[in-house]
């Protein structure tokens, strides 16, 4: 494919290494992630580990969504469906005798890859607001599909007959937690590399001006579709961990509000920054826990806070850290 040579130094600016502060904050987040189960083991605080696991699951999903939304400018309001597909894969495969975790993951990648390619191909024919509506509608399709599966718990959901089997680590929550943490770290490192590569450069360019990318002789669709599928796979992976951590799967995992919350996490942390979505997941879920402790009508407070975030915090928490380049996701 002909095109102008990407400028590597410009391409790397968006990475976390652009600022010492950001690198420090990333290291601090990871250190807290490692410290939580150790602290919990010393004090016997199981609540903290459960909360931290949930945060890591949604952080992984938000990092995935960010690839499409933040770097690719594809505002998907339906990424909860991939989270749900990942979770249901554990239930459906486990119940039909495929209990090996690695095999489950392989099947998951193939199935979700195909689903995301089909959904993405249809959805990406549209632009802007229609894309938002269509991704939301596709997510509802899968939501109602799982609700209608009465044999698998219908709208109530059901407990996993058995967790994914990983030899001696099967059902070991601490091992699962660290596997999740490592996956998140790998996803962040991968995003950093991807965004700085030629692929990432084209992807970010299509967000800014698709017509110019086309004029330079590069077809945007393969890049956008690949980013969409990759982002779906990360969400499905998060769903795989979610099912194993909670031991329970229900259509609530792919409710439309979850898709909304994932977008809030990405934007709250900083769309189009590599580590921002992690900060957003921590911020939103900790805030939710705090509000839940305060009142049962916590959503009446969360809603206005989301509106305030849109008005006041346009570039996200991550951009509040000094140094580095300004977040390029917003004009």
């Amino acid at each position: 494919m002909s095109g102008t040579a990407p400028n590597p130094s410009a391409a790397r600016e968006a990475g976390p290494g652009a600022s010492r502060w950001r690198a420090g904050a990333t290291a601090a987040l990871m250190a807290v992630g490692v410290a939580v189960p150790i602290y919990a083991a010393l004090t016997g605080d199981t609540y903290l580990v459960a909360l931290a696991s949930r945060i890591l699951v949604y952080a992984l999903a938000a990092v995935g969504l960010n690839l499409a939304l933040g770097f690719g400018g594809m505002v998907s309001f339906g990424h909860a469906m991939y989270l749900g597909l990942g979770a249901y894969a554990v239930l459906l495969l486990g119940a039909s005798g495929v209990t090996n975790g690695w095999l489950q993951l392989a099947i998951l990648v193939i199935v979700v890859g195909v689903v995301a390619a089909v959904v993405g191909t249809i959805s990406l024919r549209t632009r802007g607001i229609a894309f938002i509506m269509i991704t939301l509608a596709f997510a509802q399709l899968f939501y109602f599909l799982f609700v209608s599966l009465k044999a698998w718990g219908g709208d109530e959901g059901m407990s996993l007959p058995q967790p994914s089997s990983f030899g001696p680590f099967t059902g070991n929550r601490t091992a699962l937690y660290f596997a999740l943490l490592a996956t998140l770290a790998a996803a962040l490192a991968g995003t950093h590399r991807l965004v700085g590569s030629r692929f990432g450069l084209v992807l970010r360019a299509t967000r800014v001006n698709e017509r110019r990318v086309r004029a330079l002789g590069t077809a945007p669709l393969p890049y956008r579709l690949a980013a969409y599928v990759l982002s779906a796979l990360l969400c499905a992976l998060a769903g795989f961990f979610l099912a194993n951590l909670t031991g329970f799967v229900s259509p609530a995992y792919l409710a439309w509000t979850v898709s909304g919350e994932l977008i809030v996490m990405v934007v709250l942390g900083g769309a189009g920054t590599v580590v921002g979505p992690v900060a957003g997941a921590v911020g939103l879920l900790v805030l939710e826990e705090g509000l839940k402790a305060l009142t049962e009508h916590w959503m009446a407070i969360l809603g206005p806070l989301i509106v305030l975030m849109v008005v006041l915090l346009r570039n996200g928490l991550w951009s509040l850290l000094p140094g580095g380049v300004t977040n390029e996701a917003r004009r």
Partner: protein
Amino acid sequence: MSPAFLLTQVLNGVQFGLLLFLMAAGLTLVFGIMNFVNLAHGSLYMVGAYVAALTYGRTGSFALALVAAVVGVFVLGIVLDRLGFAALHRRDHLDQVLATFGVVLFANEAMRMLFGSAPLYMDAPAALSQPVVIAGFNYPAYRGAIIVAGLLVAVGLHLLIERTRLGMLIRAGASNRDMVSALGVNVGWLARLVFALGAALAGFAGAMVGPILSIQPGMGEPVLILTLVVIVVGGIGSIRGALFGALIVGIVDTLGRGVLPGLLHLVLSPSLASAAGPALASVGVYLLMAAVLAFKPDGLFPVRHS
């Protein structure tokens, strides 16, 4: 499957479709003129239903309940626009979706705080509680009334947009907002009026479904999402598209639920049919949407941009 059953299902589909049209018309007009997507449109529908049910409970007059819902939500629309929705028009779609998502969360919880989680119920007015006889079979009069009301609104909107000065301004505003403004029209108020009009239609839809659905927090979102499907299938910004899209979605959804499981039993084994029937029925409209978009990404009745 008797002909009467089939006809009832088709009429139910038309009735549901016209309800969706009431929602879609407002949403698509607002989008056309202001480039603004409002997820809280479903919340306006919910507020309309609550206002109608409460007014009906207090006064016992169904007509008064309808008026209260329409006027109440119209005023709410003006207030919301002034309070900040207008400021969202110039932000990107992501901001609009997020901010109105926050409003939806708040509105549902506010209703739960005010009226509890238990659903409210509302009776059909006495005059419409008996079935009417259409072509030799019985059909609930109230559902018939929804069909009539929906058709009247469709005709009224057509006349408003094609035959009045206000309609001319709305069409002009949708195709070139800045030019209309330069010609001395207060576009801010024009937009506010269109938004409040769309809100009033949503409130009217909410009031009309009161007697056939339970009224509860969160009732707006399933309808909102189907409305989005209607708009995408019909073509964003097009009233004609909203009407035909709504009728198609309403009929496909209703027939999918009412007739498809029976049909599957004719061609598949009973166990397979009872498993596949509900699944297919519940995703039918979304498959339809995917099929339409695969061939016509701009919808069935795309708006022509000059």
